[in-house]
């Protein structure tokens, strides 16, 4: 039988190899926040075929109209996305008129967003609260659902740790995506993150449920073997479910519109991480806790450095 629990520290190491660079990136570059959080304006326009001006010209046009902090980015074949300080609809109309004149093209507004700074701050605050509440709710529910098992609380904590693992993975990846591709953290990103949290716990519970069931069946098995047995028994399910969710998300990613691309990418990464963490982190963590292995960590490390 596959020995997953026995190799647990290798899997923890693999997680760290993914997470640490992500966190370093996060610390170095931070997360590029969308206007949902910072306030500002976003204008997406479509020009006639072949008439799209270079981004620099659009930035100059904004400067001429005294709109500060313009940032223009080409999108698709004929579209341009321009971010700037908050502008109102009068300024927007003026910009469109100037564009049509200067670039001699019809300009169609695909999207216009303008967010005041106060909303942004509140969204960020609420989001933090939402994550906190979700954590508490899930912790409470798991403790309740596993109340007949010894140390029910541990299962909740292990699920939350695996969940934090996934949050760290997603945030780290987002830091890289933001730095290299210019993807921004918006309200949709938050939604994706919260969904990942839900799915991560979903996966952990399926494995835990098997431990809960086996606990009454295999009384004489050591806890470590019991957990490993449960993981292997649910492995087919974990992989298949992961596959079906990944397939639907891939369909959305490849065929869905640009608007949801970022959202779906984050979900895909997060859901994958969720499956990984439930198999290789959450359940093995229970064994670490059962054996109170942290008492040996220091010794092990010192012997390793001596070798």
């Amino acid at each position: 039988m596959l020995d997953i629990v026995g190799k647990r520290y290798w899997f923890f190491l693999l997680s760290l190899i993914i997470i640490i660079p992500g966190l370093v990136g996060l610390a170095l570059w931070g997360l590029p926040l969308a206007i949902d959080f910072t306030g500002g304006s976003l204008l997406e326009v479509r020009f006639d075929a072949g008439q799209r001006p270079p981004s620099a010209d659009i930035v100059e046009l904004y400067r001429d109209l005294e709109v500060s902090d313009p940032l223009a980015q080409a999108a698709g074949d004929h579209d341009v996305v321009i971010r700037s300080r908050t502008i109102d609809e009068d300024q927007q109309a003026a910009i469109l008129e100037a564009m049509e004149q200067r670039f001699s093209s019809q300009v169609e507004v695909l999207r216009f967003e303008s967010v005041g700074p106060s909303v942004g701050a509140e969204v960020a605050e609420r989001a933090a609260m939402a994550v906190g509440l979700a954590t508490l709710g899930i912790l409470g529910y798991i403790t309740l659902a596993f109340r007949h098992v010894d140390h029910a609380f541990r299962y909740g904590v292990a699920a939350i740790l695996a969940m934090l693992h996934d949050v760290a993975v997603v945030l780290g990846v987002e830091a890289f995506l933001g730095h290299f591709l210019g993807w921004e953290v918006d309200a949709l990103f938050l939604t994706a993150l919260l969904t990942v949290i839900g799915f991560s716990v979903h996966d952990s519970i399926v494995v835990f449920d098997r431990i809960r069931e086996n606990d009454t069946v295999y009384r004489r098995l050591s806890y470590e073997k019991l957990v490993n047995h449960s993981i292997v028994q649910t492995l087919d399910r974990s992989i298949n479910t992961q596959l079906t969710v990944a397939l639907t998300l891939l369909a959305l990613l490849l065929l869905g519109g640009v608007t949801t691309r970022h959202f779906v990418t984050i979900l895909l990464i997060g859901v994958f991480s969720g499956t990984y963490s439930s198999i290789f982190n959450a359940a093995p963590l229970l064994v670490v806790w059962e054996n109170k292995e942290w008492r040996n960590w220091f010794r092990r490390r010192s012997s390793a450095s001596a070798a």
Partner: protein
Amino acid sequence: MTQRYRPWQIALMFLVVAIAVYLVLPSDPGIHLGPVQREVKVVRGLDLQGGLRVLLEADLPPEIEVSAEQMQLARNIVENRVNALGVTEPVVQVAGSRRILVELPGVEDQQQAIDTVQETGLLEFVEIDVANPTLTLALQGEEIRTDWEYQQAGLPTPTPRPTNTATATADPSEPTPAATSGATPASDEGAPLLHTVMTGSALRSAQVSQDPTGELVVSFELTEEGSQIFGEYTTDNVGGFLAIVLDKQVISVPQITVPITSGNGSISGNFSLEEANQLAVQLRYGSLPVPLEVVEIKSVGPTLGQDSLQKSAVAGVVGLLVVMAFMALYYRLPGLLADAALLIYAVITFAVFKLIPVTLTLPGIAGFVLSIGVAVDANVLIFERLKEELRAGKSLTQAIDLGFSRAWPSIRDSNFSTLITCLILYWFGSTFGASIVQGFSLTLAIGVVVSLFTAITITRLFLHLTLDRIELSSHRRWFGL
């Protein structure tokens, strides 16, 4: 062999599916059952059909409390204005404690729409005939007609009438005599046309204060232009009445006791604190109980919306087909049955969307597609257990029942945790009017609930219906064993 299902279960399943199919029909037949008459159709969000979304916020310092009633009142007023725009299915709702969300699908003239939503209401100071004091008192709360629009358009007032009041009008060049209710022939609408001396734009500020005797008054300050007009008018009309009119409704009729030439005046009238406050607020902000400012504008052009709708629909269908193919290939016969259950799942979920109705947005569709994955997961859990039980030598019927009962706790607990997240997401979305977040969590939650139902009832019924009479030993390959 005992029968593991009842005929009524089959009948019920067919009934549910038939109703769902009927509701999903693209012709949108609606519900017509005696007293229940309802249209049933897909409500598309702004991102799918294009339109304008405006978030308004009470423009007051954060330490000033805004009551729920005030926000509700403001919402109703904004809704009235929005309705005047003639937009189909506008959404106007209070979001959180200080915000109002306005969604206007398919709006073409964005600027006009925002102006309409934001306008403060027309405040007018209207001349009242001094000869008719009883009428003045009766005026309070009444709707009247004024000549302001005619003045604006530069037109003469429609019914010429004798001048019986000293006129000091805003625009002396215009023949705008004051109206007297008694002497004037009734106009076409039956109500007299009264003369507007000036409008709210002449006001600089207004607040509640106390006069030397301790009585509550509403004091106000006028702009330079306003003080001039008001000064002239009050000098000529001491003892006369001046009606304060908001959107053609008389809110107060104070008497002119002294000429007000300094640009600072006050209105007294045995006010309670509440009344005084209300009047001051109305003078300041027009008809809205709280001043509103636009804090967020999002608009999606119709091109982008149409494009997104088509792409996500294609993605949804492809996603469903790929998953169905996977299930059939991996789980063989049970997989095919699950596919049938999955189709029923999709139909029922969509029927629920149309019935509630859920506003479908792009993230909403993503939530729906994701819930397909959840629905499949329930089936996968069951089938894995089914296989295990079969390998352990159980008979098919036993294995089906055991597969379900053993898989159920994990299906229940895992889905519950997803529902908890959905609930929190929904709350998160509702506090600042992020309908995209709400749409996503709502569709995902509905998907999870429906998937629980179909996995437990329909997949199971299908399995028993088709498999109970099959000899396992001769068909092991059907089950991927």
